């Protein structure tokens, strides 16, 4: 938050708590602290995502507890598990249904690179079909690592040019309305 006029920014006697800041910073501050993740639970990592959202690890401490299973209401897709070629189509469609701005976290080795399943049926990394923002290692990812990744995502969101992102053209054609 930056302000050149301290009178306006900090003297609450004059304006009653006005803060002057850049629009970008304000938008990003809001966005990065209200991420609604959607777990794309595919395999083992989804179980660790459950751990992360339960009492002991408690994902809500980081402002991400509103887990939505509907892509329309979520803005961060957490791909947790092995993506096969058969499933890839569904993953892509669900990504397309999410509203902008949206981010993707590849949770675990399988989603990041195919992991240990180097076989005929496994997509070698979900980044082949959707743009991934954060890769998290682990097989499966520990909840702490997931939080680390999600906090990295928050930092990333905070640095993004927010307005340009708002105007960003959707990189793909919407499947369901064509």
């Amino acid at each position, binding site marked *: 938050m930056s302000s050149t006029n301290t009178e306006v920014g900090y003297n609450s006697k004059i304006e009653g708590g006005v803060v002057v800041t850049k629009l970008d910073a304000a938008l990003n501050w809001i966005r990065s602290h209200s991420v609604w993740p959607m777990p794309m639970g595919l395999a*083992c990592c989804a179980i660790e995502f459950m751990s992360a959202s339960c009492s002991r690890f408690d994902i809500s401490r980081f402002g991400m507890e509103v887990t939505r299973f509907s892509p329309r209401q979520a803005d961060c897709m957490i791909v947790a598990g092995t993506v096969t070629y058969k499933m890839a189509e569904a993953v892509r469609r669900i990504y397309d249904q999410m509203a902008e701005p949206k981010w993707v976290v590849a949770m675990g080795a399988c989603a990041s690179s195919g992991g240990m399943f180097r076989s005929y049926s496994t997509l070698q990394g979900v980044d082949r079909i959707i743009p991934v923002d954060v890769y998290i290692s682990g097989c499966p990812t520990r909840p702490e690592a997931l939080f680390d990744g999600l906090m990295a995502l928050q930092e990333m969101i905070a640095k993004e040019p927010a307005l340009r992102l708002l105007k960003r053209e959707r990189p793909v054609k919407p499947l369901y309305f064509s």
Partner: protein
Amino acid sequence: MAKEIEISCADNAARSAQAEEELLNCEKMQLTMGPSHPATHGVLRLQLEVDGEIVTKCTPVVGYLHRGDDKLAENMTYNQFVPFTDRLDYLAPICNNVAYALTVEKLAGLEVPARCAALRVLTCELSRISSHLLGLGVYAMDTGALTVFLTTYTERERIYTLFEELTGQRLTNSYTRIGGVTHDVPAGWLDRVEKACDSILKGVDEMEGLLSRNKIFLDRTKDIAVITKEMALQYGLTGVNLRCAGIESDIRKSRPYSGYEQYDFDIPVGSVGDCYDRYLLKTEEIRQSVRIVRQVCKTLPDGPIFAEDAKNICLPPKNRVLSGMEDLIQNFMITTHGPQIPAGEAYFEAENPKGALGFFIHSKGGGKPYRLHVRGPSFVSLSTLPVLIPGCFITDIPAILGSLDFVQGECDR
């Protein structure tokens, strides 16, 4: 004139009746559930034909998590495949490890030491508890009781902590090797297991208090999706899904492996075969598993955790590898060429939380299996859905899926 009107009236009535019937017939709607749906617990897709709220036809589509485990197994040594078995039923990885190791050992005619067998039983039962805790929690969540999930998951985390101490991993433990287990118990671990058992029993009581006589839960599970004896046999159902139909069969009792015959436990059997029965059975199984765990903790024998005599199958202990020439060579040979298993065929089923997990291995000798096939109990459970679901309401489907307790990793492999 009057007659004509009468006729046309009758005509009209017939026509409208026909139109109504057509309307009724064409009112069936196609509904796709999944492959990404929170109630399908993974990537299962159900192609439903619904008439209003009633499902008239159900076609499950599986294979969304087919990762080619059978083919991978043919291309790697026996020990290398152990981590892949973790990811079959990823709610209870150690049970899979044990089933796989026992199959290969059977093929090799290898007996593991008593301590190793007891450790396998101990960890297997802990896995069973953790799997049932999650299964029941999710089941309750699907039928509208979120609190239960948080309760059972808290207990599950205790088992995670124990496993992490023992094997170094929370979820995918890879605890067994061919002919043994990887780690011996750390100091004081058994006491902590006992303590965890106390708290798990408390957690189960709490869960029962929340669910067993809960009106909503009863309404949603009683007399839903009844599995009959004939059907269970025809489809080859195993585990809880078989026992809820009133067939008393548990591989731990009928074909005991890994020393299960030494422990005292009961097999709960259902009487109705509906979703509620399956819930009750799982709850009781947790209690029985706790019983087994306590017995193992008391009677854990001393001795090696590896069948050290089998020089061409078992890895030598790590501390000897770095000091002895012979052990170093043995370690090198087994790591690079794999455990040398004789030619032959073996099929072995172990009683897993989801049912009987079977491995069929055909070996032509050497360090790799020629053909390995996994029989996933979830695969079998899901194959009954076209019979179980028609006639139910759409709202029953989460309860049915939750009670069948399947895992896609094991179904699709």
